C-alpha cells in the first residue's frame, strides 16, 4: 500500500495547502518563555537537516539517532530523517552509558544528533560503535573536529528545499522505538510509514480534537506516546499544540494549563499522582479554565486518582492502553463511552482484543489471561531490529502476545492486572531487571544482585534490588549512594532502585536463573510456593 511519507503528512502537505505560515507548535521553554513555530519553519529546517545527513553519506534505511531532550531541533531532526527515508531512533537524554551502548549498538546508528553536554557519554562508548560516522551537536557554533560537527554551522549553508518522494510504500521503515524486556538487552520495535494511518485514526477517534482546540501531550518524544501523540498526530491533523521543554514541575504545569487555556491534555498516571500531592488550592485557580478532557497512559489509572482528577480539574479523565510495539492506542476510554474507573476501556475500532490462556484458548469473562491482539493493524511493529527471534516469540499464529495480563468484564471493558513477565513498569517506564542487575554487578563491592518490581502508590511499581555482599563488605549509606549513582549514570535515572535489601543469597534455579517470583513472595510476605527447582 502506498502512503504519505510521515514528514509529508505532518509538514510538507500543509505548506503545499497554504498553511506554511500557520503556527504548528507553541514551544514553551524551561523558563516559560515561548517560541511559536510555523509549519513552514519546521519544513525548511527539516529540509536542511535532510540535506546535511545526505551530504554526510546517510543512506535510506540507515539509522540516525536523536539523543536530545525535547526541543525544536529534535522535531526538525526527526522529520529531516524521514524525508531522507532513513530511520530515526529517538533516545531519552537521561540514558546512561550502558543503556546508550545497548541501543546505539543494536541500531548501528550512522549519525547521532545530540547536544554538547551529552557528547561525553557517546565518546565513552565510541570504540564499541564501529558504524558511528559522525556526531552532530545542536548547540555549538563551530565544529569540534572532523567527527563532532556543529549542526548550527552546517545549517548556515544548507538548502532549505529538499526533494523527496511524498508517497512511499507503507511498509517502508520509519523509526525505532526501544523497549525493555525481562531478559537480555532492550529491543528496538521497528515502525513503518504506514503507521501514521492508525496514529491519525486513533487520535481522531479517541482524543477527538476539534477546530481551535489547544492540545498538550506531556510525554517525551523518546516515549512512543510522545512521538505518536505529541508530534505526529497533532502536526498531521493541524491540531494546535504546545510542547514544554521542562520535565515535571507542578507549578509550571498548572500555570501552562491555565495561562495557555489548554483544552485537551494527555499525560500520565504518575504525573497525576504527583499532582495529587499538591494542595487542592492550587487547582482552584484553573478550575474555570477551558480544559475539556484529560487523557492518561503509561500505567493503570487507579480509581482514586481518576476520582481526584475528575474533581479538581472538573473534567473527565480517560485512561487508555498501548505499547511501543503497538504504535498507537489500542484500548481506550473516550467520550461517548461510560467510564468505569480503573478500567482500560474498550478496543478502538478495527482492533480485536482477546483474553487467552497459555494454550491460546479464550478465557471466560471475568477471568484473567494474556492480553492478546489479532495482528495486522497498521501501526503494529514490524520486527525487533536485528532480533527476529525475539519478534517471533511475541506471536502465536494470528495473535500478538502483549506481555500484559488482563480480564474482560461482561460489558466488554478490559481491566489490567499485571505484567506476565518480569519487566517493571515504573512511572510508565518499562525497566528490564536484567539491565539493572548487570549494572549492579559491575560494582566491585557487590557479589550478586537481583531486581524485582513491587507495588508503589506513586510509581505504580518501584524497583527493589536484592544485594549480596562479600563478607568483608558492610552496607552503608555511602555504598548505597555509589549504587544509586552508578545505575543512574550507566542505565538511567528511572532505573534507580527505590529500595535496597541486603540478603545472604539470591534464589536461583539449578540453571542459575534468578527466581524472581520467590523474591517477590518474600518481599510481600507471602508463601513462595513450589521451590523444588531452587538451587
Amino acid at each position, binding site marked *: 500500500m502506498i502512503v504519505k511519507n510521515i514528514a509529508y503528512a505532518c509538514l510538507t502537505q500543509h505548506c503545499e495547502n497554504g498553511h506554511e505560515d500557520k503556527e504548528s507548535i507553541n514551544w514553551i521553554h*524551561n523558563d516559560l518563555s515561548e517560541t511559536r513555530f510555523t509549519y513552514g519553519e519546521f519544513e525548511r529546517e527539516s529540509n536542511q537537516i535532510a540535506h546535511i545527513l545526505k551530504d554526510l553519506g546517510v543512506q535510506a534505511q540507515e539509522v540516525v539517532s536523536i539523543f536530545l*531532550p525535547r526541543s525544536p531541533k529534535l522535531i526538525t531532526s526527526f522529520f529531516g530523517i524521514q524525508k531522507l527515508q532513513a530511520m530515526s531512533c529517538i533516545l531519552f537524554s537521561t540514558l546512561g552509558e550502558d543503556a546508550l551502548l545497548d541501543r546505539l549498538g543494536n541500531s548501528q546508528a550512522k549519525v547521532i544528533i545530540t547536544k554538547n553536554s551529552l557528547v561525553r557519554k557517546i565518546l565513552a562508548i565510541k570504540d564499541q560503535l564501529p558504524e558511528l560516522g559522525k556526531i552532530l551537536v545542536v548547540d555549538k557554533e563551530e565544529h569540534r573536529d572532523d567527527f563532532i560537527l556543529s549542526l548550527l554551522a552546517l545549517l548556515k549553508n544548507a538548502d532549505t528545499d529538499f526533494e523527496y518522494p511524498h508517497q512511499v510504500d507503507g511498509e517502508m521503515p520509519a523509526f525505532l522505538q526501544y523497549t525493555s524486556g525481562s531478559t537480555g538487552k532492550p529491543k528496538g520495535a521497528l515502525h513503518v510509514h504506514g503507521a501514521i494511518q492508525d496514529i491519525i485514526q486513533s487520535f481522531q477517534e479517541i482524543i477527538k480534537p476539534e477546530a481551535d482546540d489547544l492540545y498538550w501531550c506531556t510525554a517525551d518524544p523518546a516515549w512512543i506516546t510522545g512521538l505518536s501523540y505529541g508530534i505526529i498526530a497533532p502536526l498531521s491533523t493541524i491540531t494546535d499544540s504546545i510542547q514544554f*521543554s521542562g*520535565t515535571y514541575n507542578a507549578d509550571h504545569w498548572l500555570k501552562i494549563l491555565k495561562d495557555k487555556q489548554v483544552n485537551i491534555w494527555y499525560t500520565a498516571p504518575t504525573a497525576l499522582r504527583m499532582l495529587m500531592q499538591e494542595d487542592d488550592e492550587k487547582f482552584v485557580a484553573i478550575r474555570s479554565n477551558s480544559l475539556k478532557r484529560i487523557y492518561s497512559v503509561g500505567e493503570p489509572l487507579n480509581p482514586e486518582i481518576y476520582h481526584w482528577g475528575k474533581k479538581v480539574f472538573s473534567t473527565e479523565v480517560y485512561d487508555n492502553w498501548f505499547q511501543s510495539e503497538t504504535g498507537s492506542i489500542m484500548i481506550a476510554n473516550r467520550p461517548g463511552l461510560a467510564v468505569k474507573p480503573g478500567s482500560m476501556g474498550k478496543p478502538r475500532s478495527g482492533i480485536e482484543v482477546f483474553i487467552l490462556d497459555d494454550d491460546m484458548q479464550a478465557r471466560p469473562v471475568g477471568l484473567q489471561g494474556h492480553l492478546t491482539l489479532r495482528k495486522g493493524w497498521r501501526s503494529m511493529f514490524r520486527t525487533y531490529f536485528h532480533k527476529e527471534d525475539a519478534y517471533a516469540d511475541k506471536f502465536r499464529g494470528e495473535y500478538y502476545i502483549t506481555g500484559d495480563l488482563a480480564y474482560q468484564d461482561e460489558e466488554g471493558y478490559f481491566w489490567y492486572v499485571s505484567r506476565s513477565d518480569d519487566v517493571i513498569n515504573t512511572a510508565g517506564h518499562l525497566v528490564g531487571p536484567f539491565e539493572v542487575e548487570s549494572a549492579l554487578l559491575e560494582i566491585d563491592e557487590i557479589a550478586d544482585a537481583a531486581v524485582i518490581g513491587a507495588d508503589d502508590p506513586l510509581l505504580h511499581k518501584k524497583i527493589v534490588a536484592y544485594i549480596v555482599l562479600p563478607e568483608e563488605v558492610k552496607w552503608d*549509606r555511602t555504598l548505597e*549512594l555509589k549504587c544509586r*549513582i552508578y545505575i543512574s549514570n550507566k542505565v538511567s535515572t*528511572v532505573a534507580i532502585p527505590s529500595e535496597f535489601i541486603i540478603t545472604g543469597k539470591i534464589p536461583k534455579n539449578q540453571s542459575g536463573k534468578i527466581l524472581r517470583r520467590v523474591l517477590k513472595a518474600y518481599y510481600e510476605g507471602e508463601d513462595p510456593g513450589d521451590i523444588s527447582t531452587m538451587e
Partner: protein
Amino acid sequence: MAITEKLTQVFREVFDDDTLVLTDEMTADDVDAWDSLSHVNLMIAIEIAFGIEFKQNEIQSFANVGELRQGIEEKLGK
C-alpha cells in the same frame, strides 16, 4: 575546602560530568539527568559530603544551586 568547591565535586560525581561548573542561578534544567530521581542522589551525596541532614520538606525546596548552597551554609552554621 570552600563550600562551592566541595559542592562542585559532589555535582560532578553525582552527574558523572567533570566539566560541570556551578553557578548560583543554575537549576535542574541546566544539568543533564538532573531530574526528580537523581535529585535524591544529589541530596544524599550532599548530606554525606557535608555531614548534614535535610528535612523532607527541605529536599524539594531549593529553586537553584544558590539556594542549595545557602541551605548548606545554614546547616553548617556559617
